[in-house]
């Protein structure tokens, strides 16, 4: 790994988001190095998508945002739209869940890609079309010259996601944010898309952020994982370490609640209770009411990510880790 790879390309610090004074994000910190692949996992409403929509100014205007988002040292938050428009689709591209509805249904897919090429690479129509053809080829759409003139409804879900990827690549991004890119797709098509993402990430050397509720997908594609719960990062670790030695009780619970084909059939260990609603968050650690390792102090402790001793790259936001009260080991169910 060269030095250039180690420097962070984007740094999010203390990002807070609230909608109508109801907080959705409580201070997220995240830094991403060039070429790195990071996964963000969590259940619905945990803030994994909101983080990036806020960073790119894609949230509705009523969202109240504070903190800092620095792209290669330059602040993005609260920048004018004209500057963000240069970044969005250019240096940072984003693809979404359900590709069929993420593409404009009344515009030819080729024109939707050409739009990016003209905006970010200043290409004139003829050159842009040739480049769009090349991109279609790169993401594996057969017969690109003809298919550029087709509309989204003429493609399958998997093909539409390939088109979304081609559109994202068109601006030659340094960072690709994939928000649940395969959730709406069938398993065999999901495998195709994940392969494609991995392949282009390597070819283009761009950083990849994979947002997913599925730890399995994150494990296959990412080097590092952030686990989010109720608007906070509760654990951050290299992917192998997270699976081998999860420290936060929520991560431990998620892994045990996941059925698997690899292990012998066993009763799942479910996390009791439900995710608290944003309007009614418990004091202290938001996970405490569902946590088997809860102690009294959890209810007043200000949740904060802390490094695991002797493991600088592994952090968890748990009182037990912060105070080393108890070895954060797997607790018997």
């Amino acid at each position, binding site marked *: 790994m060269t030095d250039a790879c180690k420097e962070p390309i984007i740094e999010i610090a203390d990002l807070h988001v609230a909608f109508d004074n109801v907080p959705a994000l409580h201070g997220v910190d995240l830094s991403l190095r060039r070429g790195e692949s990071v996964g963000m996992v969590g259940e619905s409403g945990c803030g994994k998508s909101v983080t990036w929509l806020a960073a*790119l100014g*894609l949230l509705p205007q009523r969202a109240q945002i504070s903190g800092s988002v620095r792209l290669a040292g330059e602040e993005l938050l609260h920048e004018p*739209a*004209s500057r*963000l*428009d*240069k*970044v*969005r*689709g*250019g240096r940072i*591209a*984003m693809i*979404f869940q*359900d590709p069929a*509805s*993420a*593409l*404009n*249904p*009344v*515009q030819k897919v080729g024109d939707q890609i050409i*739009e*990016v090429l003209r*905006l*970010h690479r200043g290409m004139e129509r003829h050159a842009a079309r040739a480049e769009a053809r090349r991109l279609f080829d790169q993401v594996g759409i057969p017969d690109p010259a003809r298919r550029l003139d087709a*509309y989204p*409804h*003429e493609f399958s879900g998997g093909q539409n996601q390939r088109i*979304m990827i081609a*559109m994202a690549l068109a*601006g030659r991004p340094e960072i690709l944010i994939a928000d649940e890119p395969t959730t709406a797709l069938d398993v065999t098509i999901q495998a195709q898309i994940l392969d494609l993402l991995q392949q282009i990430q390597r070819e283009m050397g761009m950083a990849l952020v994979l947002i997913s509720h599925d730890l399995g997908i994150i494990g296959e594609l990412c080097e590092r994982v952030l686990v989010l719960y109720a608007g906070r990062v509760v654990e951050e670790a290299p992917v192998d370490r997270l699976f081998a030695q999860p420290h936060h009780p929520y991560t431990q619970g998620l892994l045990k609640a996941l059925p698997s084909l690899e292990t012998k059939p066993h009763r799942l260990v479910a996390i009791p209770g439900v995710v608290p609603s944003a309007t009614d968050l418990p004091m202290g650690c938001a996970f405490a009411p569902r946590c088997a390792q809860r102690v009294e102090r959890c209810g007043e402790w200000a949740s904060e990510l802390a490094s695991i001793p002797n493991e600088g790259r592994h952090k968890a936001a748990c009182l037990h880790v912060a105070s080393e009260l108890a070895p954060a080991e797997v607790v018997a169910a």
Partner: protein
Amino acid sequence: MARFVAIRLARALLTIGMVVTFAFVVLRASGDPARAMLSPETPAAAVEAFRKAWGLDAPVGVQYARYVLAIVQGDLGQSMRDGRAAITVVAERIPVTLMLTGPALALNLLLGIPAGIYAALKHGRLADRLVMAIAVAGFTVPSFVLGLVLVLAFAVELPWFPSGGAGTLRQLVLPVVTLGLGGAAVLARFTRSAMLEVLGQSYIRTASAKGVPWRGVVTGHALPNAAIPVLTIVGFMVGNLIAGTVLVESVFSWPGVGSLLVVSVVSRDLAVVQCILLVVAAAMIVTNVSVDLLYGVLDPRLRDASYPIGGA
């Protein structure tokens, strides 16, 4: 395609058939044309002669058969009032009416659609509420009330415009505003909700995430999609305009098809009434077919025969 055309054609013929029958039944059931046309002092023999001359003495079934047969042969009959061919009487009024409905439709579209788009873009803010409040007022006030108010305000109190008649541009203003304002209000409300719906779609977020400037997102991505549902309403507007014409022409004594219809109904001038209804039906059919074809232009999904609509 052939199937499509055949179905549309059959439907159009059915509609016209129903209109023709409806006109015949209603006008025959509501009074004797001879009595309505001739003055009460007309001697009985003259009334009989009038009846005989217009075929009104035959049984109703025979009258209906003669009438339908004549229409099929392209003969729409003669006006009982001045004896000219009904089609001629109606045809000379059509341009006069179009002079009213054309600008009124333009007012519908040019005022209603931009107002709706503007309100949607300012969603939830003062501007949005203001535009919508005006729109609600605009379509709750019936057009004859609006017409009378306009006459009182701008022809009587402030004598800026004439209160009636046709021929000059100034005479056009009040009737066009009366006829066009209600439709513009309906269209504004509908365009706003169509835009709001579209602006919430995932592909709008995609366009912003691509770095398309907001103006481009609205014009390039939101408007073409919002146009599809708005088109449906524009189809209805044309129908409303035709209905509104009857009222507005009477209020402003505009010598178009609408006031001709009123006069002809009152005097039981059957052939002319039937001819007008046929023209209106034809106009509606042409409008509907145009709307259907425009759908295909706006929405590629409808152009494609293999795309399932509400499949299983």
